[in-house]
């Protein structure tokens, strides 16, 4: 059976992942173990979730420059409100210390429900952004650029200094040690399947992607583009929330600046996974693979032991090599 160019292109992200893994195992055979996978990949889970969130927005031809700070916001909420209610906020603790608030707080100030409300607020804001962008026909880049400051501001207000404590259930979820298969691998597969089901298999998923391919056609077929945008942005908010929660489960505490890098990482992950910026062409499985590849690239570099001057540059080089390999295979295939 001969592969078509399109099939090969879909397989490419997986292929580059395999090559990278092989290189890692060659450099560091110890990585090829249960513990090895755990250590190399557990931080890929939040990145994969953030990448899926970014992908939802890219599907409808928008870009989310705020996903990194939003994930940071969720992490801060997770480390404070979600674990100890308002009583876990540094401001409240300070007020208690100064005697302005009693040492034992009323029930309402200790319930983690406030955290749930704050997370729901995050998703609602995302949905509202989708609506705003559609109504006013705004460039998403500017709106989300503005939002990146908003989320950062809220995070700094919640946690002026890094700290807090992740809720126990997140901590134990993220440190699960199932038999045989390391947790990060299971999680990555679950995320990929879930996102794929949602966007590629449901019938409304076709409409959602279609809105990226030809919005006018979707409108002429009687669908509401407003609803589509709201859905996609809310989904982004949802996956971004999962990213933040899984991240705080791993780091155990929050930090406003914790995930600034996720914005670019998530965009790179989507593209690495075979998605495109416009036209609704996306691949959820590819996006997850892209996120995992990016994470492993870091391990690979660290195993290479390059001079510190060039360590930063090497990260650039590896991104280039992975993407260039894709182009070269692509081109060789087309010539065949």
């Amino acid at each position, binding site marked *: 059976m001969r592969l078509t160019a399109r099939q090969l292109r879909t397989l490419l992200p997986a292929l580059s992942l395999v090559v990278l893994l092989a290189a890692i195992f060659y450099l560091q055979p110890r990585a090829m173990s249960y513990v090895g996978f755990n250590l190399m990949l557990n931080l890929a889970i939040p990145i994969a979730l953030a990448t899926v969130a970014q992908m939802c927005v890219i599907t409808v031809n928008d870009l989310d420059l705020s996903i990194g700070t939003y994930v940071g916001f969720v992490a801060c909420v997770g480390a404070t409100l979600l674990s100890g209610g308002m009583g876990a906020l540094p401001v409240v603790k300070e007020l208690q210390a100064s005697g302005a608030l009693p040492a034992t707080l009323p029930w309402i100030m200790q319930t983690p429900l406030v955290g749930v409300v704050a997370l729901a607020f995050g998703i609602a804001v995302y949905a509202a952004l989708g609506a705003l962008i559609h109504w006013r*026909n705004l460039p998403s880049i500017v709106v989300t*650029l503005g939002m990146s400051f908003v989320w950062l501001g809220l995070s700094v207000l919640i946690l002026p200094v890094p700290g807090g404590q992740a809720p126990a259930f997140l901590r134990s979820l993220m440190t699960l040690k199932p038999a045989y298969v390391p947790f990060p691998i299971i999680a990555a597969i679950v995320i990929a399947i879930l996102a794929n089901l949602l966007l590629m298999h449901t019938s409304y998923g076709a409409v959602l992607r279609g809105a990226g391919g030809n919005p006018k056609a979707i409108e002429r077929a009687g669908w509401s583009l407003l609803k589509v945008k709201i859905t996609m942005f809310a989904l982004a908010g949802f996956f971004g929330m999962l990213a933040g929660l899984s991240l705080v489960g791993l780091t155990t505490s929050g930090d406003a600046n914790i995930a600034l890098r996720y914005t670019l990482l998530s965009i790179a992950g989507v593209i690495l996974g075979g998605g495109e910026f416009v036209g609704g062409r996306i691949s959820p499985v590819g996006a997850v693979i892209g996120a995992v590849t990016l994470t492993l690239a870091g391990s690979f570099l660290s195993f290479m032991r390059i001079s510190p001057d060039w360590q930063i540059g090497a990260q650039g080089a590896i991104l280039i090599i992975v993407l*260039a390999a894709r182009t070269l295979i692509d081109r060789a295939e087309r010539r065949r």
Partner: protein
Amino acid sequence: MNSSFLRNLAGRPWLWAYVAAIAVWLVIVAFTGGRGGGEVLTAAFTFATFSVIVGIGQMYVVTLGPGNVDLSIPATITLAGAVATKVMDTQNGMILTGLLIALACGVAVGIVNYALIWLLRIPPIIATLSSSFLVQSVAIAYGRGIRIKPPPALADFTTAQVLGMPVLAICVIALAAFMELVLRRTLYGRWVTAIGQNIRAARLAGVDVGRTRFYAYVMSAVFAGLCGYLLSGFSGGSSLSMGEEYLLTSIALVVIGGSSVAGGNSNVPGLWGAALFLFLVVTMLNTYGFGAGLRYLATGLIIIAVIVAASARRPAR
């Protein structure tokens, strides 16, 4: 005639950046009770100058269409600053050599960027991000983070003022006017805008797509190099972090200034409005004593408010 003039003005998306800048300035002056308004403007022009220089290059790149953006601007600023100050080694006689070398750094980075985009077909966002890591490494290896003073004459030039107006700002206003002319009235400008709207149609209309994009990426990097050179003259030497803030700023200028991020529709005047606006917002929040958290929050909300206000006035399509 009068009403059509007004309509014409309202149809210009860049107007809103200026309206917002003036509004913020008034709020600042209100705090001080009218004192120091001029000085605030002087400071705003001083620092907006550097953002506008890189904003122009970024704008040309963004105009090329969806997905086109230059993320290597900060690293290029840093590299050009480091190399230029080291080569000039505080000697006035080397000022011109330093400038040429800073610009050459830009040319080199631009060529690398476009090679990645064109030869290896890497999406510009990722190509310029990757190359920025490489460039940053070169800057570290070359300069080792050592801060060398600029030649005194360069420092004097970059900090000179006439009647409260920074000389550098005047030069960059002229530069901006020139680049607006290039965008609107030259073949090259038309080609950039054509590509941004429909790259395939541009090719079939006879536009030299490859070369046009190449020049845009090189231009962006060259402006970044120029910015690094002037900035290290202005702030007493180069540092490894001197470019960091220009990543978000350069993009924010383009979009707040009223250029379309979907490409094909841009303007230079908006860059100045947006640059002044952004500086004044930070100043306003500092003046009113906002903490970091509230300051970020307010900055974000103000940006969104400006863009929503501007959109309401834009024609439906």
